[in-house]
Structure formats: structure tokens, C-alpha cells
């Protein structure tokens, strides 16, 4: 597990978080909260509680492979088997395979995703998969699931425990929040958060136009004395190669300043990831840097603390410093505002100075 982990013990929880862990174990809950409000941590502590409370038959479903491997690397802190942590895709494939399904799915991501869930739905309808297969399913980043997926989880589990932030939704899929709220006995809201420094909150707040939005800045309990923050910096550059060089000029300092901590370099497209990777490979930083594909599950290695990935695959991870490249391309896609927003909020501190 990475140093300075966000994983906290139950006694360190704030008064909002504490009571959530030991809510009745046979009921379903949706926990909504801003980034850094401890949702993923609560999910794991809830899983511990359930495992100890004789509900070992649980599944923890996270969205990306990268986050799954990240969580698995902290297995010694859990009272359940790390193998209980899975990604949506892995879980679907395993379930279908167990039920004799061997057909080749469509290659395109969205089609494939629909294909899998429809097949499972068919198996349930045909009575081939028993309802309540699991005692509890715990869903991380639940706002990113399809309503159909939520329905299936609900059917296959006696109870669900979902954590979500509707503001962090990054996939342009149908909104499942209504489905989630209808699927649980109670929805709880967290408001305090501890991971995003004030400059980062302000940046995230500025990216949001929704009038009902509660600014992140108001409820930030970020410990600036412990992790001094700096203001985000912005550089206007001509090409992605130039951008890569700009970023690299900071990375050298950051790996020294934050030993053993994850430093992220993200871009919206795979093309830009490749372009930056080729620039880094020709430099002395190459030994410290890992190119992360979205289905990559190699654990974090403190000797190579810089992860280069797309914004999508980086989602849910937490970096000590984050560089966002290739934003110029996003200006053509106004709906991607949420994507930048999410990337910004994964980062407690930006040290681009």
C-alpha cells in the first residue's frame, strides 16, 4: 500500500462517517459524498464490518482495473479476502463463464458493456442464476454504473452498499442515481471531505456551473499543515511534446519531494498518453515512470512512482501531485467538463510550480 494512505482506522472517522460503518447489515444503503469524503474507505470498512458480522459472502465491485489492483495491494488491512475485490468486467465475465457462456463479445467498449449485462439479465430471467447469490454487494463509484447494472446487482444480492458522487460521473451513460436510490433502504449524505486542498477545491468549484452545487471549498477539512498545498499552475503550450517537456521539468523535483507517493500524469486520450510516453522514454525519468493501460493490474511500485494513464483509467486513484495534459483537445467536447473536474479532484495537491 502506498505511504500516506487514505485508509484510516474506524476510530479516526469523523462523526458523519462513523455511524455508517455499523448500520444494520441486512439493509441496503447509498452513501453520497464529495471526493475525499472517505467513500471508498467506508466501503472497505463496511466490508470489514460485514465480514466480521458473519457476512463473508460479499463482493466489492470497483470500476477500473487500476483501482482494483490498488485496493488489493492493501489486503493486509482487510478482514475479508482480497479476491473479493473485483472490477465490473471481471465479475461479469467470471459469472458468465461459470454459467457456461463462451461466446465472443463485441469489441467496442460500450457495446461490450451492454452485451455482458444483457446476457446476465437473460440468465437471471431464465432462472439460471439464482437471486441473492451474494449476501452483500458493495459498489464503488456507483454513479458510473448503468441503471441495468444496478438492477442486476440488486437482484443478485440480499443487500447492496453503494458509494457515489453524482458530481463525479465521467461516463456518458444513462444516469443511474434514481435507480440506486430506489434500490436502497436509505440514502446517506456525507458533506465533509479531507483530501482536496483549498486551491484544488477552488479549481474544481470553478469548473462547475450547476446552481445547486455545494462548493467543495465550504466543507474542506484538508490538513494543510500536514500536506502543504500550492496553487495549481497552468501552462499554455503548442504541442503535446512541448507539454510533456513542461511536465517533465516538474517531475524530477516531485519524485524527490514526495518519495513513495503516487504522482499522476493524465490526458483525455490514449493518443496523447502514447505521445508523452515516447518523450519520457528518451529521458532520465524513464526508470521512474510506468505506462498504465486501463486493464493493467500491476501493483504500485515505490521505485517507479509516476503513473501515466488516461483520465478514465486513473479515476478513483489518489495522487500526491497530478499533471493534466492535452486539455486543448477537450475544448471541442464541452460535455467532458466533468472529466476534467474528476481528474482535478483526484489530486489532493498540485505541485506544478
Amino acid at each position, binding site marked *: 500500500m502506498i505511504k500516506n494512505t487514505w485508509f484510516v482506522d474506524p476510530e479516526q472517522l*469523523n*462523526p458523519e462517517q462513523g455511524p455508517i460503518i455499523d448500520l444494520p447489515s441486512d439493509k441496503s444503503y447509498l452513501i453520497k459524498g464529495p471526493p475525499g469524503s472517505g467513500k471508498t474507505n467506508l466501503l472497505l470498512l463496511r466490508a470489514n464490518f460485514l465480514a466480521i458480522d458473519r457476512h463473508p459472502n460479499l463482493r466489492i465491485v470497483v470500476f477500473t482495473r487500476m483501482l482494483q489492483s490498488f485496493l488489493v495491494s492493501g489486503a493486509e488491512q482487510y478482514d475479508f479476502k482480497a479476491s473479493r475485490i473485483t472490477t465490473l468486467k471481471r465479475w461479469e465475465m467470471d459469472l458468465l463463464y461459470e454459467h457456461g457462456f463462451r461466446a465472443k463479445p463485441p469489441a467496442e467498449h460500450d457495446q461490450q458493456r451492454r452485451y455482458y449485462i444483457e446476457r446476465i439479465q437473460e440468465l437471471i430471467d431464465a432462472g439460471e442464476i439464482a437471486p441473492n447469490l451474494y449476501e452483500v454487494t458493495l459498489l464503488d463509484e456507483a454513479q458510473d454504473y448503468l441503471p441495468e447494472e444496478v438492477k442486476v446487482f440488486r437482484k443478485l444480492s440480499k443487500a447492496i452498499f453503494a458509494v457515489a458522487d453524482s458530481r463525479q460521473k465521467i461516463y456518458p451513460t444513462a444516469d443511474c442515481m434514481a435507480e440506486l436510490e430506489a434500490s436502497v433502504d436509505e440514502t446517506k449524505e456525507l458533506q*465533509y471531505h479531507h483530501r482536496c486542498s483549498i486551491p484544488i477545491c477552488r479549481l474544481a468549484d470553478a469548473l462547475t456551473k450547476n446552481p445547486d452545487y455545494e462548493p467543495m471549498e*465550504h466543507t*474542506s477539512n*484538508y490538513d494543510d499543515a500536514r500536506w502543504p498545498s500550492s496553487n495549481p499552475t497552468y501552462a499554455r503550450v503548442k504541442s503535446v511534446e512541448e507539454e510533456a517537456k513542461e511536465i517533465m521539468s516538474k517531475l524530477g523535483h516531485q519524485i524527490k519531494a514526495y518519495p513513495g507517493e503516487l504522482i499522476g500524469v493524465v490526458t483525455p486520450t490514449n493518443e496523447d498518453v502514447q505521445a508523452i510516453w515516447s518523450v519520457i522514454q528518451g529521458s532520465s525519468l524513464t526508470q521512474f515512470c510506468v505506462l498504465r493501460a486501463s486493464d493493467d493490474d500491476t501493483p504500485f511500485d515505490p521505485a517507479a512512482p509516476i503513473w501515466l494513464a488516461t483520465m478514465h483509467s486513473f479515476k478513483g486513484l489518489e495522487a500526491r501531485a497530478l499533471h493534466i495534459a492535452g486539455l486543448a483537445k477537450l475544448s471541442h467536447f464541452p460535455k467532458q467538463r466533468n472529466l476534467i473536474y474528476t481528474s482535478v479532484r483526484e489530486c489532493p495537491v498540485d505541485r506544478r510550480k
Partner: protein
Amino acid sequence: MDAPKKVGDWEVGDFINAGKSASVYCGRRGDQLAAVKIFSAEIVQKYGKDAQLGRIRRELSLIGLRHPNLVRILDGGECPDTGLLFVVMELIDAPNLATVLTDVPRDRISQIIAQVADAAQFLESHRLVHRDIKPDNIAISRDFSHSTLLDLGVLRPVGIAELTDDETQRHFLGTLRYSPPEYLLREERDDLEGWRAVTFYQLGAVLHDLLMQRRLFGDIIEPYARLVQAVERDIPEVRAADVPADLVFLARNCLLKDVKLRLKFVSWKHFEVPLVGASPIADLKERIRNRRVQPASPRPDSDRAEERDRLVRQKAAEIQSQIQSSIRRESVESGLFPPVKIVSVENETPESACTVVSYPESMAHGLAVPLNIWIRLTILDAPSTAIQLEAWALTSRSAPETLADPPVQQVVFNGVNDETIVRLILQHLLYVALDGAQQLAAHESAEGYAGAGQWLKLTALPDLKEPSND
């Protein structure tokens, strides 16, 4: 001027120094040594003998009055033999502060300023004002432990008209640099408060020189008009990380151009030592040493209302942000508070900005009911960042926005904004409020709070409460 052998009863000895209007010599009467100041004949002729004699008589009125930090006047008048005008003072074998400014140990500064202020207050108690307090007129012992206010040549009784108009004009030639703007324009009020404001400014100027180790507006030598402009408009930078923050704060408050604000923020007790030691917050000093100070921003040339409003809004936003950051920091770092929510309330006027700080109930923190604290910032003068902070607090389960006006708004701070001092004030405020809320909870059951809530009694930090000048 050739030194005479004798003036009055005093034998004149070695030359000590000379100013524009007089020369000072060692003097002896029997076995008593003294400093003899002999006025130049040209000056006396130029401005009139009667006026000069009038001033000397004022100095002589101090004979017999003793204060440890005020030079003693022994004798004076017109010499019957030579016709020279003279004043005899206690002989002090010590350099003047202006010549040793950079040698003063930092930990002696508060004592020096306290001693000089005490002498000035002593004069005030006799309805006199020095009018020319500056480092050149302060003798400092070689171990920097004892200071003496010198040169009572422009001493003036409060509320009695000038001897001549000329006097003031000549006076300015020497000490414009250390004059507050209202004195420069001769707009000072001729009463105790009016002259006290002048004295506070001059004490602040001396404090400035001690802290910054250079003269006030020291970069301006010429032209004369530029210095006048500086006195009227420039906000001197005062900062020092190696002295208690109170001293910097005091200097900035003293140097305010606005007389009303100066008198509102400063009182004699602020010059007393130790300023910091009496604070109830134990690690005060430690935090103060880690202080950060924002540089003073220049006063804009434009006096247009729009420009002023813009500046006021900008300062209000900056200071509000600083306040919120201090509150968040203390709430999170101390570990003594439940999670905090900090919200800015819509500003009613450009000058004011209100912050609501809310803590949820948390048994782990001994808080049985939610606590809300309001802090209203008012910009009193934007260029110098003179501000006032008022606060009120309430324990209530209802949303803070729905609550009626508070019964009492406690003024918790008045003065030039100083991040360290304001942070101390806010820390104190947060702990008083939390303590009050916890005590309420201990006395009543949680059901008792279910209604409109309970207002808490807040107190200001004793050392920095609103000054009273009586």
C-alpha cells in the same frame, strides 16, 4: 558661534553638538554637571526674543518634575551678562537612538518603546505634548536598557494657542518626516485626544525605525514635496519576523493616517511591556514567531468612488479568505473540533463580509449540539487594511440561515490586519465558542436545544480588546 565662558550661573565647557537653532555644551555649577543649550543669536533675532523666551519658560515649567525616561530641566532663561538665551538640562552620556538604530537588540525594542511612551504619557498627565518624538531625540544607554526622551524645545501645553505661527513652520523643517499628516496640515485638534494622536503616530514612527532598522520614509530624501506626499499618502511597510507580532501590529496601527482610526485602535496600554506575555494562549509566542505578514499595498492615486469600492471589495475578499483559511487550519490541525463547514454569506455592503463557521454535533468531540459561529469583517480603511471583526455564536439544530439577528455582536478585533494577530484572535474565538457550547451541553439535556437554539457569550482576547483611552 564662539562659546561664551559662562551663561547664568553655569560655566560653559566642552562642545557636545549643535542643531539648527542652538549648540549644546557641557556645563558646571559648583560640582553639578549639566548640558547647557545656548540658542544662536541669529535664530533668536529672526524669530523674536519673546517667542523664544516663551518656549524656554515652558521648558522651565518642568523643573522639579521627574520621570525616569524624561530628560530633567535644571535651569534656563536669559543670561544677564551675555544676553544669550539658554536652557540647562541633565547631562546624559549616551548616544541618541538614531545613531545606533541597527545595533539595538531585538528583544529590547518593546522595552524602549514602553519607556518613551511612558515619558510621553507623563507629559500628557501635565497637559503637555512633546511634538518632536523621533529617534534623534531619544538617548539610549549603551546596554540598551534605558531610554530618555530629550529635547523639550517644542514642548507645548494642550489647549493654549501657539506663541507665534513661525514656530510651527520652523518646527516642520526639522521633523516633517516624523509628523502625522494631520499635523503636517495643522489640522490636529488642540485637545488631549488630538495631541495624543500626534504622539501615538510619532511613537509608531520610532517603533517603525526600530523594527525596520531604518528611518521612516528613509528612501525619500528629496524633493521636499515628495516627503510631504509620503507623509500624506504612503503606507510604510512594517514587518519583522523576529519580534512579537504585537509590536508590528502596534506600529502599523500607530502609523494610520486616519486620526479617528488611530485613536480607536491604539491606547496607552498598548505600549506597556510585555504585550504578549499576558496572553492566555500558552504557545502564543511560538506561533507568533512563525508569523507571516502581507506587504502593505500602495494607496491608489485615484480617489474615485468606483475605484475605492473596487479596492474595498478586493481587500474584503482577501481578508475574508485569510480568515477562513485560519479557521479551517485551526479546526483541522488541533483535532479538537468536529469537521468544519465554512461558508461566506452574501455581502450587504462592499465594506463588510460575513463568514459562517459550522460544526456538527459530535459526541466524540464533546459537542452535543451543532455549533454555528458568525464572523463579520468590516473594512474600515482599505489602503491600510484597517479592519473590525465582530462575532456571535449559537448552538442550534436549525439551519444557520434561518436564524434571526443575534442579540449581541461582540467586537473581537480592531486594527490593521495582521495575519498572525488575527489568527490568534480567531483561535481564541473558536475555543471560547466550543468551550461555551460544551458547557451548555453539560448543563442541559440535548432536548433543551431543539428549538431556536442558544446564543453563546463570547469574549475578546483580553490583551487586544477594544482600547479605551481614559
